Structures are given as structure tokens and as C-alpha cells.
């Protein structure tokens, strides 16, 4: 039986906005992601899917509920402990790539290794080049982000997310800033990674992309619901 990697139990998130008004971004989300899973969270803009993803990635704390990582409760960890888990166990792919403009492609890929002890400069470079090879960008290793296309930047970002061999890869609208052909290539890359054993949670508003996942969740008004196979089709 597959072990659960991350579990959300009744997660809520309430933001206080001007005038003391409260915005309920999450209203009790339950989600279980076993190892090797490819889960997609689908929903309209502002539905709360990115908020959930940020909590799964230890970038935000829930207002209520429980978050478990490898069956250990992690929602009340210190900032330092959250950063440590984020750097070693989680890989992030952002919609807007978020590459560092002053670093070239391989340096961007290697960036997370600088924040983890015990990885030599040589190993950092070797790992980065290996990952760039895997995403088909070996020949662009010394190019800065400004010299790469959107699809290439996203592939660099994916390589970066994998550099510390994370247990969980989180992708927030990874194709949102790409044309459909490039977007498809990126999704195919994610599928290949999952087939190689990488656990992935992907947030998208594109049903065609979500259809490629093993498990699909729909987020609406802060509520998360698993979509059964019969309920969901690519034409959704």
C-alpha cells in the first residue's frame, strides 16, 4: 500500500481585509496525496486553489485544520523548520517562472542547492546540468533567463524544482503563461516525471491538463471536492 506523503484535514484560511472584513479562502479542505500521485486541483481564479497549494508547500500557514507530512503534523512548525522542509522536500514550479535574472540557466537550476548544506559546488553544477539535459536545455545552460523563451524558462524552473530531489513537486498554473503547444510540452514533461515516480500536485484552471492527472479535485469558493472519473472529462 502506498504511503501518504501529505494530508490536509479540514484546512481553513481566513484573510482579514480592510474594515475588519474576513475573506474565507479555504473552508475546510481535505486532501490526501499518496507517494507517486499526480493530483490536479482545478478551479476558477480566486477559488482558493493556489492558497491550498501554498499551504501544501509550507509557504503559508492554515488558519485551522491539520496538515500532515509523512504522517507528522507540520502546520505549527517554526519558520525555520518550514524553510528546511521547503528546501529539501518540496519543489515549486510557478506560473511566472520566477527565475533570478542575474543567474544563468544552470545557476538558476542549482539555486536551491545553495541553501542546503553538504552539496559541493561541483555536485551542484553536475546536478543542474543533468537536469537541464533531462528537460532538453543542455545547450542553454549558460544563457540568462532574458535570453530564453517562455517554455524554456518554465523548463528551467521545473529543473530547479527537482534539484534537491524533493518528495513533492507543486506546480501552480505551470502553463498559464505559455502558448498551448509549449504548455502541452510542459505538461508532458510533468507526466513523464510522475511516471518516473515523482509525486506531483498541480493547480490549473485548464480541464485538459487536469485530465492527465491520476486524481482530480475541484475547488470552488474555498471548498475542495474530489472529482470522480465519471464526473470529469477533458471536455469539462
Amino acid at each position, binding site marked *: 500500500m502506498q504511503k501518504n506523503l501529505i494530508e490536509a484535514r479540514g484546512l481553513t484560511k481566513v484573510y482579514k481585509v480592510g474594515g475588519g472584513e474576513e475573506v474565507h479562502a479555504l473552508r475546510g479542505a481535505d486532501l490526501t496525496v499518496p507517494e507517486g500521485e499526480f493530483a490536479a486541483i482545478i478551479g476558477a481564479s480566486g477559488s482558493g486553489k493556489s492558497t491550498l497549494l*501554498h499551504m501544501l*508547500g509550507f*509557504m*503559508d500557514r492554515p488558519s485551522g485544520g491539520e496538515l500532515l507530512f509523512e504522517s507528522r503534523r507540520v502546520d505549527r512548525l517554526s*519558520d*525555520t523548520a518550514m*524553510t*528546511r522542509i*521547503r*528546501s*529539501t522536500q518540496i519543489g*515549486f514550479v*510557478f506560473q*511566472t517562472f*520566477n*527565475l*533570478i*535574472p*542575474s*543567474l544563468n540557466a544552470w*545557476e538558476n537550476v542549482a*539555486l*536551491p542547492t*545553495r*541553501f*542546503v548544506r553538504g552539496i559541493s559546488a561541483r555536485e551542484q553544477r553536475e546536478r543542474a546540468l543533468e537536469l537541464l539535459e533531462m528537460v532538453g536545455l543542455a545547450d542553454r545552460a549558460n544563457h540568462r533567463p532574458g535570453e530564453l523563451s517562455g517554455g524554456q524558462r518554465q523548463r528551467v524552473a521545473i529543473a*530547479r*524544482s527537482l534539484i*534537491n530531489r524533493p518528495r513533492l513537486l507543486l506546480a501552480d498554473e505551470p502553463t498559464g503563461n505559455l502558448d498551448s503547444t509549449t504548455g502541452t510540452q510542459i505538461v508532458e514533461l510533468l507526466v513523464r516525471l510522475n511516471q518516473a515516480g515523482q509525486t506531483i500536485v498541480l493547480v490549473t484552471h485548464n480541464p485538459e491538463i487536469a485530465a492527465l492527472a491520476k486524481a482530480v479535485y475541484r475547488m470552488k469558493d474555498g471548498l475542495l471536492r474530489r472529482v470522480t472519473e465519471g464526473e470529469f472529462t477533458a471536455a469539462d
Partner: protein
Amino acid sequence: MLQLAFKNILFRKMRTLLTILGVASSITLVMFMNGILVGTEKSYIGSFANMAGQIRVQPKSEALNGNSTDTLPVGAFLDRSTMEKILAAAGGTDPARTSAVVVQTLINSTAPSVPAPLVLAGVEPGHEDAILLGLEMAEGEGKLTGEHDVILGAATLKELARQTGSTPRVGELFTLPSTPGEWRLVGIGRKRDALTDTLAVVPLKAAQQAFGRGDTVNYVTLGYPVDGVQEAAERLKAELSTVDVATADALLEAVDKGLTAQRAFFRMINTTVYLTATAIIFMVMYTAVMERTREIGTMRAVGASRWTVVGEILIEALLFVFTGALIASVMGWVVLVPQWDFLSTPEYIASAAQTLGAALLVALGSSLYPAIRAARINPLEALRYE
């Protein structure tokens, strides 16, 4: 972190260039002024240390009162009868280190409290040591045998070369600025201290004639054994009420007081420069943090701790200041050391190292707040930042 900071600095070339330029100019100013101060203090201390055992008897109006560092009594004269009274009262002196002296500044100093670069001193032949005070000769003899003989200090020779474009050699005739006639160079002193290195020593009579002094002199210098000088000074003070009697210690103390104003002035300028540098670095680093909010958010999101972010910002500021300070050190050296004889390279390096230390503290102090602010950036908010 160091590599990241380097990459960042190199990526934003114009900002880097302007910041380093600003830092380098500020630090050059501080290094230049500190160098002047260190050189001046050292040259006076060295000079008066070599005067140990000497007593200078000069007109009362020339007594140092701590308001100035101009140690040469060029403005008033002692007549023959006073001079004889002084020599009669002296008793127990070393004749070789005792003489009446005429002094005349030939080239004025270019900055306050800095010794004049060329001073003519007339001394009785056979008593040259009264003013040379054991100065070793690099070339020729330290004795005046001819009527128009001259012994030059090391700095004087360089100054003459600067003024006239040619360097006289031992045995050659040459002219001195603002002085009539030709002089024969008999000896060149080794570099030692500000007071002897700047001298052109000539026979007393020749100096009196050259400047129309008649029989008058500017002061009488009396050489005593070092351990008896204080007692002799007390005795002379009691016997000679119309003149000023000053030992080397008293002269040094007065000069040290005279330098107080200069030190305060330099401190004020230094403080202003450091405050300005603090403001510049603060603004540059604060703007950099604002500009790179998204970048910092990304770093935090991919695993950088708050300390890593703080470290990166501080290192960047330190790199700016360190590079600026290195440039400033070279610029300060070029402006000061080869042009000015009273500061050696090791002394300049020691002074520059202190300035560098202070500059690095300024860098740390001014970038601490931007660094803390960067560390407080919430990665989520930063990633949404446009």
C-alpha cells in the same frame, strides 16, 4: 552567498559602478585626510624625538602657545647682546650641538599644520650638528667649510627638483629659490624627519647676508646631555626672563595642542563623509531590496532562510564598500605618498586599514535595516509583487 552577491553586483552594472564610485570618492577623502594627519603627527614626533637634549632659546613673541604648529621662530630676532647673554648663561653645553641659528622659509607649506617643504637655516660652521642633530649623510659631508656651502635634506632635494626641474649633485653650484647667489652642494642628508629633511643648511654669516639680517639671529639652540636638559632649562628660564626657553618636550607638547584644532576639523569632515556614505549605502541597498522583492521571495520559496537573505544583502553592501575602499586606497596613495615625504607606504597602509575597517562598519550599519527588511519579506506576497 558570496557568489550570489557577486552575480547580482555584476548584473546591475550601472548601479554598481555609481555606488562604488561614490564610496571610493568618499573613502579617498577620508584616507587622504587621515594620511595627512598621521604623516604630520609622525613627522613632528620624529623631529622632536631627535631634538632630545636640545634647548631652543628664542624671542618671547615666538613662543609656541598651542594655537599653531608652526615651530620655526622666523618672525622675530635676537640681537647680538641677547645672543651673548644666552651663550654666557648656557654653561655645560656640547659645543658641537650649540649654535645661533637664522631660519627663513623659502617655500611655504601647502596645507595648515604641514611642515614647510623648504627652509633655509644658517648655522655656525663646525656646529652643524646643532641643527642636523646627528643626521647621517646619504652623499657628501655634513660639514660647511666654504662660504657658500649648503647641506640639503632629502625632502629639500626632491622639492628643488620639483621646483626647478633639475637635481643638483654634490660639488655642483646651484641656486635656491628666493635666495640670492649660488650655493655649492656639499652634502645630502638621509631621509629622517620633517624638520631636518626640509632644511637647506648654510653658514650663519651667509644666511645673515642673504636676508639682510646684520648680526641678528632667530634663535639659539643649546645642546645638553639628555638627562640634564630639564634642569638646564629651568635654570635658563630663571636667568633669562626676556626670552622663551623651550625644550623638545615643551615644543612637542605645544605642537600637539596646536594639532587639536586640525584633528577636530578632520574628525568633523570624516564624520560628515561617513554619515553621507551611510545614507548612500542605505538608499542603494533599500532600493535594491524593493526592486528585488520578487527575487527575494523566490529565494525564500526555494529554500533560502531569513539568515541567508540577511547575509546576502550584507555581503553585497560589504562588497560595494570593500571594492570602493580598495580603489580609494590606491587613489589615496597616488595622491599622497609619492607627493609628500612625511608619510611612508607602511604608515599609509596602517592608516588606510583603519579607514577600511571603519568603512566596513559603515557598510554593515547602513545595510542592516534593508537586510532585515528583506528577510521579513513574505515569500507569498513577494511572488505576487509586481
